[in-house]
Each structure stands twice: as structure tokens, then as C-alpha cells.
């Protein structure tokens, strides 16, 4: 691997979904409702078995492209911010890069291991203790039990919950659980980190700590792809940004400039009001 090779080369990534048109049940008469219910298995089967994300398939169904054409290079050590309105395709892009869902078209060459922090508490189980959850969540995120054991003290220390580590997570405040979950994921040992809106946990002090942690990851030579609606945080963390609009890259450059464009887009006159 040459050091000048980009760690991610995305080429024409696209993702199509079939729009689920659920019947508006409450606005229909009873006889329609009965027809809907008995016709449901047939329609569901037809819809479900038409492969939605294969090229040329799903004809006839109402489809939409969540991503249309995304190409970019991410160099080693770069921190890339992804901005755009709700529904622009930011999260879908991260899911494709994390290999949670396959693209409909296009390719992405990834050099190095990817660590995804999309929903850090996804692996948590509330009946288990904090310690048990560290091992469970760490394993799901891709760490070996040995790696976790080695990092356990640092994970607990970072989350600031040493006293409660052997208490079931259901007794935690939501802030405590979020801090622990973030701490596990932040100790992932991957060359490329995908981060989706997970820094918004805990109080102001802990958020600053998360931000510092992310900076530390960036400084250690790792690359980060960062999605957030918290534009100030994004500006402070990233050295480059891409602006996604309707599944395409509209601008690529220094975060300051792009954020100006984006903030302009979000002004009430031009916005649908759904974005923060």
C-alpha cells in the first residue's frame, strides 16, 4: 500500500430504495380496508421479492434514489465533514461505506479497517451491567474480548462511570449509558472512523471531551468521515467538507466556505423547515 493512495476512493456510488406506500387506512371505508388486508400478502410478496437494490430491477414499483452519484477521495489522516439537509443522503453514504447496505451502483475502494460509530448504543442490552455491555458492544463493533479487556480501564475512565460499572444499564441515566456507549466505540482500533451524529451525548463538558477524543483520533494519523448537524462542531473538527444535495455532491472544499453555503440553504425562505 503506497502512502499516497487515498484510504477511501468512492466512484459513482448510488443507492435506490423502493418507496413503501402504506395505505392511508384511516381515510378509507371499511370495504376498502378489508380489500387492503386480504390483498396485503400478495402485494407484500410482490414488493418484497422485487430486489430493490439491483440494477434494472424493481420496475413498476415507485422507487427513489437516496444517493445518485457520489465520488470523492479521502486521504489518510484527513477529517472529512459531510453536510447537507435531512434526507440529502448523508447517512446512506455512511451505511454504504460501513458495508451495512450495498450500493445499487458504483464502487468504493477502502484501504484499511473501517470503524463505524453510527449508533453507538445499538449493541447495548439494558438488563446487563455496564461492564458486560462493554464486552458485548465492543464485540459487535469488531473488537476481540482480549482487546476490550486491555482497554477496559480506559473505557470506564473516559465514560466517567467507574462507580456504576457493575450496575445494570437500566439503572443508568440516559446520559451515563450514552457516555459509556460512546466510550466503547471511540476505543475502536480502525484506520478509518465513520461518525454519524454521535457526539451529541452527555453535558457540555463531556461533549468537549468527545470532540477532543475525535481530534486525538485525527492527529494519530487516522481518517474520519464525520456527519453532524452541529455545524460549529463540524467546523472545529474537519479540515475538509463535502456538501450533499439530493444524493449528489454539490460542493467539496474547506469547511468554512461550504458551511456558509449550507447555512444559506437552511434559511427559512429556501428551507422546508425540517432541518435543524
Amino acid at each position, binding site marked *: 500500500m503506497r502512502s499516497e493512495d487515498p484510504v477511501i476512493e468512492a466512484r459513482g456510488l448510488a443507492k435506490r430504495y423502493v418507496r413503501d406506500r402504506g395505505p392511508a387506512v384511516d381515510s378509507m371505508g371499511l370495504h376498502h380496508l378489508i380489500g387492503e388486508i386480504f390483498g396485503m400478502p400478495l402485494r407484500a410478496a410482490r414488493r418484497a421479492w422485487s430486489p430493490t437494490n*439491483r440494477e434494472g430491477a424493481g420496475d413498476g414499483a415507485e422507487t427513489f434514489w437516496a444517493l445518485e452519484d457520489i465520488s470523492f477521495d479521502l486521504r489518510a489522516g484527513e477529517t472529512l465533514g459531510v453536510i447537507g439537509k435531512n434526507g440529502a443522503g448523508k447517512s446512506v453514504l455512511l451505511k454504504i461505506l460501513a458495508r451495512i447496505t*450495498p450500493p445499487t451502483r458504483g464502487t*468504493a*475502494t477502502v484501504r484499511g479497517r473501517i470503524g463505524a460509530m453510527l449508533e453507538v448504543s445499538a449493541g447495548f*442490552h439494558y438488563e446487563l451491567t455496564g461492564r458486560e455491555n462493554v464486552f458485548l458492544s465492543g464485540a459487535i463493533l469488531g473488537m476481540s474480548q482480549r482487546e476490550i479487556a486491555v482497554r477496559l480501564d480506559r473505557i470506564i475512565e473516559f465514560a466517567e462511570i467507574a462507580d456504576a460499572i457493575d450496575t445494570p444499564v437500566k439503572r443508568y441515566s440516559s446520559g451515563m449509558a450514552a457516555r459509556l456507549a460512546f466510550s466503547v466505540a471511540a476505543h475502536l*482500533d480502525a484506520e478509518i472512523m465513520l461518525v454519524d451524529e454521535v457526539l451529541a451525548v452527555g453535558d457540555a463538558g463531556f461533549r468537549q*471531551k468527545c470532540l477532543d477524543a475525535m481530534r486525538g483520533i485525527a492527529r494519530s494519523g487516522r481518517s474520519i468521515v464525520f456527519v453532524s448537524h452541529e455545524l460549529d462542531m463540524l467546523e472545529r473538527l474537519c479540515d475538509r467538507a463535502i456538501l450533499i444535495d439530493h444524493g449528489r455532491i454539490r460542493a467539496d472544499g474547506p469547511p468554512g466556505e461550504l458551511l456558509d453555503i449550507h447555512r444559506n440553504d437552511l434559511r427559512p425562505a429556501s428551507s422546508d423547515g425540517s432541518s435543524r
Partner: protein
Amino acid sequence: MRSTPTEPIRRSTLAVDFESEATATTTVIRPKSGWPDLGLGEAWRHRELIWVFAARDVRIRYKQRAVGMGWVVLQPLLTMAIFSVLFGRLMKVPTDGIPYPLFALCGLVCWTFFVHTTTKSTITLAASRDLLTKVRFPRLAIPFGALVGGLVDLVIGLLLLVAALAWFGTGVGWQILAAPLALMLLIATTIAASLPLSALNVRFRDVENALPFVMQVMLFLSPVAYPATMIPDAWRWLYAANPMSTVISSMRFALLGDEAALHPSWIVSVAVAVIGCWAGILFFRREEENFADAI
């Protein structure tokens, strides 16, 4: 990467030691096409995750439960008692000369493992929405985790069976050598049922609604409460299409010396289980790419 010896690495606040060169791997993400491989290599590399899922399920089962472990023992014992009174005493079901409680417990231990593991796997996968949509990990780890968790119960059930054998003063002979084969068939049958049902349940939650009913029917089609010898010989070949029939019959042969239970139609059961196992894993692998979108 960027950190060269001339450029000192600043320790991150997380203090994770990071060696990029040692772990450089290249992955190409592209649209999926055609049939996938079985993915057993990947599952094996992540065997620790399978174990972690199994441990999670076992742990959760004993949290905030008064009887805890006791349920694993109580359930087959109580069912055995009910079956013994109903089928043994009242209906006088023949058992090839074996005490009815032993005869029933042997079938129940195998049957309970099959039903519980299949149900657990089916429900757990579709309930793992957050994991499937937000985390990348080998999806096979969920049904295999349910399987390994179920094996814990199976071992407890088998110990119970051994205790019952001692209670009735029934010794085991050379036939016990067939037990590992019967257990392998049991595991293959369970995989053949649980993987496709789990994958299908992600798309159609009807599967978990229909499952208790289907399992009820399967219970009648398996020699749990009655011996397979009650089935007319001409029908045994069709009867063996349900591999659980051979699993239970051969366990009775292995542990209780029930030679009458054996029938050449076992070959049908083995064929169904092996092909079902292979096809089930392939189907699961083909479906798993859509889990995140379909759930």
C-alpha cells in the same frame, strides 16, 4: 500512513496504540450480484462474537428471574409428567417396552432444543433492528449465537436424562456410540429450520406469528409422545422427511437401546437435514444484504 518516525505521533486522548501498517487491508464495496458463498469462514473468524451473543442470551435469561436456571429443568420435567399421565397412563401408548417417562423425556429434550432455538433465532434477528441498520458484523452470528445458547440448555437436558436413566436403573450399552451422530443430525435440522425462518421473518413478521402453530403441527408429526413404530411401514419414508423423527428415534436407540425405532428411512432424514442446512445458510446469506433495508 502519515505518521513516520520523523514525525512524532502525538498520543491521542484515548491512548489507543495504533499500528496502521500491520493491519492494512483493502476492501472493495460494490453492488451485490449472484449467489453468495456460505460465509462460514467469516463466521468462524468471528466465533468469539457468536459466543458473546450466546453468553448475552444466557445471562439475560437469568437476570431478574426468581427460578432462573430452574426453568430449563422444570419445563421438560413438567411436560414429561403431563405426557406420562395422559399418554402413558390413560391412553396407554406403547413405548417399545421402555418406561414411559424415560421414553418421553428423551424425545422432549431433543424437541425442546429444536423449538426453542428456532423460535429464539427467528425472533432475535428481527428484533435486532438497531444492530442490523447501524452496525456491520457477520449476520450469521445472531442465529448461530441462538444455537450455541440453546446448546447450553441441551446439555442440561441431557444431564437430566442421564439422571432419569439412573433413577430408573436403566444402563446404557454400546448403542451410546450413536448419540453423537443423533446430536449432529439434531443440530443440522435446527440450522436448516432456523436460518431460513429467521431471514424470512425480517421481511415478513408473519413468520413469528405462524411459528408456534407450525411447531405444534410438527410436534404431532414427530415421535415425541408416541413411538415411530406406530407409523405404518409404508409411510415411514414420508414420515422421515421430517428429520426430527430420525433424531428422536435414534436418540432413543442410543440412550434407551430402542432398536425397534430404527428404520432404513433414516437416510431420507439425513438427506433432508444436510441439503436443508446448506440451502438454509445460502438463503440467509443471500437475504442478509437486504436486512438493513427490509427490516
